[in-house]
């Protein structure tokens, strides 16, 4: 797949056509890169610019046949930015382990499951950590990025403390609310 007649060896695959995925795909397409974007919901592709010159694939990216349809084997980079952490982890692992893609990036809201992927050389982005760092730049006097880490563990501790015990049977314990 060549765009704008430019000779280009790169082929980037974006999984998830949300705000981040669509923006990335648009930007890559604008600079003349080959891009494919996958989303379960065909309506999601409306977020793409009318000038988008890449491939759109409708389907569940956790299915191997869908990834094959989008020619994942030829990809030089895979960026997984769906709204489900587990999906991003699995797509990233599939790309790395089954297709030997060099650069694999996954967006993870909660970096709790690090031990699952840390040995595979997957690059991860955590929006909460990044935001904290940025806000920290605006408010240098507070050193916020460290504090948010603490807030995060405090939240977990609270959830654990908030477990409820019901009378029925052996009892139900509540893991509490989380995103």
């Amino acid at each position, binding site marked *: 797949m060549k765009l704008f007649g430019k000779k280009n060896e790169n082929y980037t695959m974006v999984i998830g056509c949300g705000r981040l995925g669509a923006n990335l795909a648009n930007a890559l397409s604008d600079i003349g890169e080959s891009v494919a974007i996958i989303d379960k919901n065909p309506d999601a592709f409306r977020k793409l610019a009318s000038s988008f010159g890449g491939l759109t694939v409708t389907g569940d990216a*956790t*299915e*191997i*046949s869908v990834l094959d349809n989008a020619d994942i084997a030829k990809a030089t980079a895979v960026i997984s930015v769906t709204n*489900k952490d*587990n*999906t991003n*982890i*699995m*797509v990233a*692992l*599939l790309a790395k*382990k*089954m297709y030997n893609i060099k650069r694999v990036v996954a967006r993870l809201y*909660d970096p*709790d*499951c690090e*031990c*699952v992927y840390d040995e595979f050389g997957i690059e991860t982005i955590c929006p909460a950590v990044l935001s904290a760092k940025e806000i920290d730049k605006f408010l240098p006097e507070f050193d916020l990025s460290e504090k948010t880490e603490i807030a995060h563990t405090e939240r*977990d501790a609270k*959830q*654990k403390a908030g*477990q409820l015990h*019901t009378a*029925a*049977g*052996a*009892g*139900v*314990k*509540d*893991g*509490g609310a*989380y995103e």
Partner: protein
Amino acid sequence: MNKRILLINGFKRTKILAASLIKKGYKVTAINNNKEHCKLLSEIDKLSVFHGDGSRPFVLEDANAYNADIAIALSEYDEDNLVICELCKKKFNVRKTVSTITDPKKMDFFHRMGIDSVVCTITTIANIIEQHAFLDEITTSISSGEYENLKTTQISISHNEPCVNKKLRELNLPESSIIGCILRANKAMVPRGEMRILAGDILVLITLDEHETAAIKELTGR
């Protein structure tokens, strides 16, 4: 100490599995992220139930997943099952992990990720339905886990099968197939070449997948 088994996500299958495992004397813990399902599950005697997303480390921690013997991931989403099994293996040191999957193409990937047993529920059920729909004379056919191409099939022999009254060595079975056992009058017999097949016998046929049809045809004529 009793073996500890974790059942993570899934509802109907969890219910049946839990009841059966508890009966066999295992210590079973179920983790489910649906509150209603948790309440219904907690009605099962001796089953510990935890409410929460099993793919989150802190939920597994609450459920005391450390050093459990077996973790079975029963979610309908493959990605959740993968994360659950990997967490159990790497973080919680669970001895054996079992995952169900829906996409049969991912079987190899899951094995390569180090999950001990992978069960593709959809293909397994489809195979059973196919057997029941088409092959009356075959009572059960088991394809065994990782050695998918090995088939064990039970065949009931009635009066009009071509193999009746033939000696085993007279049969022209294809290669890579053998009659492993003859079940006759509630007795299991280890077959010899001189033995004759009688009407009413049940033959246990062991074959490689590609020779199964030819072997069955030789025995039953179909």
